[in-house]
């Protein structure tokens, strides 16, 4: 009777899983979570996956979980995870939205670690500017870039146009390639509020020589240059773009030949390689004919302060592996643009596969950062406010001059908060 009872107890313990984990359990696996919008982005996702595979091979018992969060909701989700004290171990964010994380003291200072590497000596000067907050370095720059105009040469010629050299020619060309009734548009411009909508506005505003803020970090959106930029943007949107589309859809429409052109960073090359067979041979890139080229730092990686020291060490090793010369060469080939490390050379055979490479190298050299300095710690609200006001210009057709006055007031309120 007692033996039966004992058997029953052992059985219950086994079923409950109290005993089973002890039998045949191997060493515990360390999991490093790595959410990113680049998880399925052509080109760069392959580089990340290679880096992860190499790291896991050289670090048995460590697994990197590379998952997708769309760019539009990426920063919000990460901030929510930090707030809940559950940050991912590998922090990857657009450079524009890095500052709220640094300002809240959520990131590990990296200066001591960076001193052991060649990053400070060999990286693009933006590393020292965009990854530093209040004198401390908190991140490693992944890419600096400039925007270029990717266009369909066949559609351009069909409209009787050549590559535009002036802003006027540019907008005129976009309109000429548009036939809205038949679903054909001259250019894709993101008009759904969010990060990409404001990035596309910045192409025009910064192209005209405008800046979101002045040298002291105060909002400066009523300058003639900003007004001019908004006017060009409004004209292009109302005359040449399918309204209400987000970036992924617009890139797809370019690849299907329904949208003739798109302003984008070097990652567009990866998408272009996936274009429909009848469209792919006709895709070209050219500089956007503005006085200035919008761009700057693209994205960064960092380590959260709140994770255990051992995990911090592992994440740093992962980040460091990406700063090495060979990794940076592969990165440059994967994204089709210059990597942040300046002392590398791209093999000439690789350049043959990157038809837009030289255009993007040139764009990156000339690029002006569109980070709203002075408002950088409120980047989420900044983006929402700018997008909402810009919508008034196209949805209600309100005059640019009037809307920027309201925009200035609202940004000043944001600055005071």
């Amino acid at each position, binding site marked *: 009777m007692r033996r039966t009872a004992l058997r029953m107890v052992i059985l219950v313990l086994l079923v409950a899983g109290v005993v089973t984990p002890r039998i045949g359990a191997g060493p515990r696996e360390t999991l490093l979570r790595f959410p990113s919008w680049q998880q399925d982005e052509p080109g760069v996702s392959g580089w990340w996956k290679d880096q992860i595979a190499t790291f896991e091979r050289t670090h048995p018992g460590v697994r990197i979980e590379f998952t997708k969060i769309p760019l539009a909701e990426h920063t919000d989700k990460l*901030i*929510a995870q930090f707030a809940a*004290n559950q940050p991912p171990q590998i922090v990857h964010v657009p450079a524009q939205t890095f500052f709220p994380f640094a300002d809240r003291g959520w990131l590990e200072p990296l200066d001591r670690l960076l001193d052991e590497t060649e990053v400070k000596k060999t990286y693009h000067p933006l590393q020292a500017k965009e990854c530093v907050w209040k004198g401390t370095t908190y991140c490693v720059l992944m890419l600096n870039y400039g925007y270029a105009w990717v266009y369909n040469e066949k559609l351009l010629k069909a409209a009787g146009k050549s590559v535009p050299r002036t802003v006027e020619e540019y907008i005129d060309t976009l309109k000429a390639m548009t036939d*809205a009734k038949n679903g054909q548009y001259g250019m894709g411009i993101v008009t*759904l*509020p969010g990060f990409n909508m404001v990035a596309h506005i910045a192409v025009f505003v910064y192209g005209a020589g405008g800046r979101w803020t002045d040298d002291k970090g105060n909002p400066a959106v009523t300058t003639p240059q900003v007004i001019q930029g908004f006017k060009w943007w409004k004209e292009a949107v109302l005359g040449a773009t*399918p309204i*209400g589309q987000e970036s992924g859809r617009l890139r797809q429409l370019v690849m299907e030949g329904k949208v003739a052109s798109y302003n984008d960073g070097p990652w567009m090359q990866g998408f272009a390689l996936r274009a429909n067979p009848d469209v792919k041979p006709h895709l070209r890139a050219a500089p956007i004919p503005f006085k200035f080229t919008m761009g700057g730092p693209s994205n960064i990686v960092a380590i959260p302060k709140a994770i255990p020291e051992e995990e911090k060490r592992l994440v740093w090793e992962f980040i460091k592996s990406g700063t090495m010369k060979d990794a940076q060469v592969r990165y440059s080939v994967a994204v089709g643009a210059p990597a942040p490390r300046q002392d590398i050379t791209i093999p000439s055979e690789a350049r043959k596969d990157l038809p837009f490479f030289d255009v993007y190298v040139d764009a990156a050299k000339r690029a002006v950062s569109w980070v709203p300095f002075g408002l950088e710690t409120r980047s*989420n609200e900044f983006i*929402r406010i700018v997008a909402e006001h810009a919508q008034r210009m196209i949805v209600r057709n309100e005059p640019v001059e009037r809307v920027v006055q309201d925009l200035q007031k609202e940004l000043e309120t944001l600055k005071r908060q």
Partner: protein
Amino acid sequence: MSTSDQALQPAARAAGWLRSLRGPAAFAYLLLAPAVLTLAVVVLYPVMTAVDISFRRVEIYSPSTARGPLTLANYVRLFEAPAFWQATRVSIAYVIISISFALLIGFGTALLLNHRFRGRTLARTLAVLPWAVPPVVAVNVWWWILDPSYGLLNWILLQLGVIAQPVNWITQTGPALASVSLVTIWKGYPFFTVMLLAGLQAIPQDLYDAVAVDGAGRVGTFRHITLPALRGVLSLATLLSVLWVFREFTIIWVLTGGGPIRATETLAIMTYREAFANFRMGFAAAIGMVTLVISIVASIFFIRQAGKEFY
């Protein structure tokens, strides 16, 4: 009665209550305990936390965050914010439009499906189909239909010559609210159909026979028998739908994100935006509290209506 007797009274009452816990009562409380505890953890704790932070200046809340002093600042700011009144107006308009049409369509469908005809089973299945479709899937299909540049609706209307230019169903302020309401109606009417059909089938045939003998026509029968008999079901279905639509998030967020220019920003969307985009969780909690109060008032009204007996 002496002072010591008075002091003993509460102790005696407590002892009496403990005695009552023996036997079947104790067993009943024991069975209820897990449910009560779960309710306390998953409902009461979040609500109490929301009430608490709505009275504090909290940007990003976590249980370990040091809390500042109590303040009415969030509520003062809320009632002074034009965006709050705009969101309230949008919420009310959205609820009224969506519920009215969903109720009318649902009622009509229920009356139709209450009759015997060939293919009734198939018709019943089709009528409730929208209810079964996951909201995100439904909204994405509707997004494709309403897409201003490549949408099916614009294409049909252009082919028929009804419109000369594509209409921006989602990106113009007026059509955007109509569009989110349309999707909500499509998703919501089957609930009314199911509830009212059940209600219709529960009305005794004797009542209809009696009014027929009295010479009542179809309109009279509907007005004096069907409608009053359905009052309870109608109130309950309306109450539940009002509460669902009032805090609807998925349809609006996926279709318009609350835009353009806040034209479809309801209180639910505003709460989310303030909490998880602007990270003003104290302020967002204050919006949530106002929403809760409105929901409670609506619930009391409809529950009273539902409580009125017909039979």
